[in-house]
């Protein structure tokens, strides 16, 4: 993926997640629907990855389109580091080393 999807929006219902994905994509945002991490929100099984640096813009677009949002989290799933053919540890350290 070209954009760094380092943010995650959680929702109260998958209806909102799917709507948000459509609305944000139409507005030119890079997004990816993802399984909602239970440790962040028990509310909904579907969450939306996006670029955290564009949080304010994204929330404004969603509010404008009446899409209800639960919370926004800085989030890079550990599964991004899973690479069956490469070195998971190196990839993980590269990804998360940047954050610490």
């Amino acid at each position, binding site marked *: 993926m070209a954009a760094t999807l380092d943010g995650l929006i959680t929702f109260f219902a998958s209806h909102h997640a799917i709507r948000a994905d459509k609305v944000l994509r139409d507005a030119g945002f890079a997004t990816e629907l*993802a*399984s*909602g*991490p*239970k*440790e*962040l929100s*028990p509310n909904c*099984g579907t969450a939306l990855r996006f670029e955290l640096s564009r949080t304010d813009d994204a929330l404004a677009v969603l509010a404008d389109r009446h899409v209800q949002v639960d919370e926004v*989290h*800085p*989030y*890079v*799933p*550990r*599964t991004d*580091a*899973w690479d*069956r053919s490469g070195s*998971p*540890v190196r990839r*993980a*350290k590269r*990804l*998360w*080393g940047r*954050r*610490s």
Partner: protein
Amino acid sequence: MTIYFDNAATSWPKPPEVRVALDGYFGDVGGNPGRSGHRMSIAAARVVEDTRDRLAELLNVADPSRIVFTKNATEALNVAIYGTVGPGDHVVTTSFEHNSVMRPLRDLEARGVEVTTVGCYPDGTLDADDVRAALRPSTRLIAAVHGSNVNGALMPLTELAAIARTAEVPLLVDASQTAGAVPIDVAALGVDLLAFTGHKGLLGLTGTGGLYVREGLDITPLIRGGTGSLSDLEFQPDFMPDSLESGTLNVAGLIGLGAGVEYLLGLGVSRVQRHERELVSRFVEGVGEMEGVTEYGPKDLDQRCGVLSFNIAGLTCSEVGTLLDRDYSIMSRVGLHCAPGAHRTMRTFPIGTVRFGFGVFNTRDEVDAALEAIREMAAWAANDLAGIAGDNGRDA
């Protein structure tokens, strides 16, 4: 290649016969069943009644009119629960129920219905004597899931039915995971109410389900309206199936469901059960040898249907589900599966589990591929991920 292990959510693929039958809907069966006298209405009514007849054969229901169609099992369970109990009544249920039973019961609890939730063992099995002990003179319903949608545990249906019969309390069975996958003979069992969905084991389409209501048991309709019968009266008919079947039915869906049930009648549900049990056995044996993998179902295969739950140490269920999909093309469902009570009983609340629901079209090779994937992920979690556990990028 896609490996579809989410049959507990909805079955995929459907038999080719289902698609062929739907072609018939668009070609020949365009009318509204039971509303008009013209040939297209009659054609629609015929296919709906064919589906009812096939379901009656599958479940061994002598009078097909005792089966009413709903949009899903949830609606059927709501019809059964709200139609049988009211303020002052007492209901006995189990700690392994889906929210489609628990949410109506919690709502009724706030309106003066008393609810006793009998605890299951952590593996989902139930001591039927505990249900007997929970009965009171005011008990008006026993509601129990047949096969758990979380770990596949089967309830002791024969014993529960006997207890219900002796106490003269109706037994409501939620057969969402078992209809079409585990043989069910409502006549032999003496079940009073049985809710099923059309789009899982019965291999039909979403938007279909139904409720069997024993002869002699009258329940109050949840929804009233047009039935095509007694049109001169502004009162709901009191005869089945019209009493509980208001509004135009999902004819296209029911044609698909009829084809799915026909397929099962030809195959035999016992064969489906044997097949799914073999897959479960293969899976349980496979993960049993793996470090860091926990599987949560009953040890006794006879007490299980084709649904199972597991976790990999060091990974959340969401992470496992993501990897299974993204890197192995294996479809699973993760989380709490709309059954928080079951997870509390299994001690997997609130972390949840990864669920596989096997279906009639799954194969041993697919199970072996999943086992290999789980082995790789467990090794990754134990070796590589452990070193970076403190820096996992999660800002909770």
